């Protein structure tokens, strides 16, 4: 099988990364599949940027293996298929947006045209502005343009919407989605649960250098809110899914497992709809603390 047909484009394999005595990543497994948007979610300091920098070959892992398109990303040639948007304090201010795009396009073998890049990144009206004259959100969009100008198969976006207002953020989401629609794979980091939910096919939650969650937004939300109702009921799953507060339902023999954000809400609806429901078991998850840290940010 040729490597190009493998579903996996990037992976961290039990990767350990220490900064001196501080452990930034502890045996992290992570995999980006072809054509998916993967969100790496976590509070500041969780290790998101470290994971991205390892995948870009900017850092050396202390243990484990980093692979991008089957190769070690520290070899510069592999980067012709990736584009990156990093958090940067300041950019060279005296070059125009169009000039920066022209320059970065020249690094790639088959770049988009400058016009296509500006269209895809929504920076057409910024073309002749110098980087130093851009607002925070405009700067992010210009950096986004540099990440995608080479027409890469895989994009790394580190906190792409930081410093953007709501409207600009939604615009950026739309552009990221249209990348995925064209078959690109995207790994983005964010500390907004909402952003991960709106964009990602799959979410990996990092907390203190460990992966604590990995799944779709729906799966994670139910586990995050962390509440489960188990009981025996004759109601079909489709009816249960229509209840308020219900995130997911699974049938196990004659009982069901309902993932919910409100146990009280589910119980009230359940008993009203099926008075014969019985054998209730309630469970609160253990992820709340981690997510309080997330949402508190």
């Amino acid at each position, binding site marked *: 099988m040729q490597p190009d047909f493998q579903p996996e484009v990037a992976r961290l394999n039990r990767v350990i990364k*220490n*900064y*001196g005595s*501080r452990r*930034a990543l502890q045996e992290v497994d992570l995999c980006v599949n072809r054509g998916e948007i993967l969100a790496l979610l976590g509070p500041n300091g969780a290790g998101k940027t470290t994971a991205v920098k390892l995948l*870009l*070959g*900017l*850092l*050396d892992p202390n243990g484990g293996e980093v692979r991008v398109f089957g190769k070690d990303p520290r070899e*510069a*040639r592999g*980067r*012709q298929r990736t584009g*990156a948007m*990093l*958090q*940067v*304090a*300041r*950019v*060279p201010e*005296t*070059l125009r947006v169009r*000039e*920066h795009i*022209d*320059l*970065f396009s*020249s*690094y*790639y073998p088959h770049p988009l045209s400058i016009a296509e890049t500006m269209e895809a990144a929504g920076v057409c009206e910024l073309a002749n502005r*110098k980087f130093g004259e851009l607002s925070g959100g405009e700067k992010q969009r210009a*950096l986004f343009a*540099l990440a995608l100008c*080479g027409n890469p198969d895989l994009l*790394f976006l580190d906190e792409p919407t930081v410093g953007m207002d709501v409207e600009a953020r939604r615009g950026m989401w739309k552009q990221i989605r249209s990348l995925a629609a064209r078959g690109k794979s995207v790994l983005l980091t964010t500390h907004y649960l909402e952003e991960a939910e709106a964009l990602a096919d799959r979410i990996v939650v990092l907390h203190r250098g460990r992966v604590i969650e990995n799944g779709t937004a729906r799966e994670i939300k139910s586990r995050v809110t962390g509440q489960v109702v188990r009981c025996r009921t004759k109601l079909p799953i489709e009816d249960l899914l229509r209840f308020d507060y219900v995130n997911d339902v699974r049938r196990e023999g004659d009982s069901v497992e309902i993932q919910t954000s409100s146990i009280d809400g589910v119980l009230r609806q359940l008993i009203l709809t099926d008075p014969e429901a019985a054998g209730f078991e309630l469970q609160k998850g253990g992820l709340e603390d981690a997510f309080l840290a997330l949402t508190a940010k």
Partner: protein
Amino acid sequence: MNIYWKETKYEFLKMLRNPRFGLSALTMPLLFYILYAVIMYKSRHFGGANMSSYMLATFGSFGVMGACLFGIGLNLANERGLGWLEVKRASPLPPAIYFLAKLTIGLLFGVAEVAALFALGIGLADVRLAPLDTLRMFGILVAGSIPFGALGLALGYLAKPDSAPVIVNLIYLPLSFFSGLWMPVELLPKALQQTAVYLPPYHLSRLALGVLGVDQDHVYWTHWQALTCFTAIFLGLAMLGYRRDNARQNGLA
């Protein structure tokens, strides 16, 4: 080749539009030359040459060093400190081209600087050099961008970004003075004349002065040898800084 061309072109544009670089690093040697060679000492002679030609050699060295220290050193320190170097490293741009482009613009600004000084000297300060001597002095001065380009790389990697402007000036200005670029080294106190031989700009200016027949007491080749040694030392320091920078990012330093 296309990458190198574009990288150099935009590096050039970037620096040209930077007012701090354009106004301070590039114009200072020109202003000094106008003040000393055109206005004050135009008709004086010194060491067997007329003063305005003598100063073409010294301020030419001063200008080439400035173009490299600010255009390469400060520029690199800034990009390193602000995360831009990392953006470049994350791109497919081969690192060698990044550095090569920086060295090239150091050279280009050096050429522009020396050309401007020659124009001032010939046009306003009665500099009369044979065409061949003009070419020789021009070539020697421009070759100075090799050792000073290497020093620029070293400073770019070793200086902390926020203190880099101060550090570059603290190296640039005293080094120039103690090498006799502002005032002929023969007029400096004896002790300073003896320390000057340990400074790279001294050797560059002596090579350029050699074209005028000023530097008779030294063997010409020792200046070339000294500059070669300094180049090697600066490249070694730059490599050391590069390694240290990588180690620091990996949390090892």
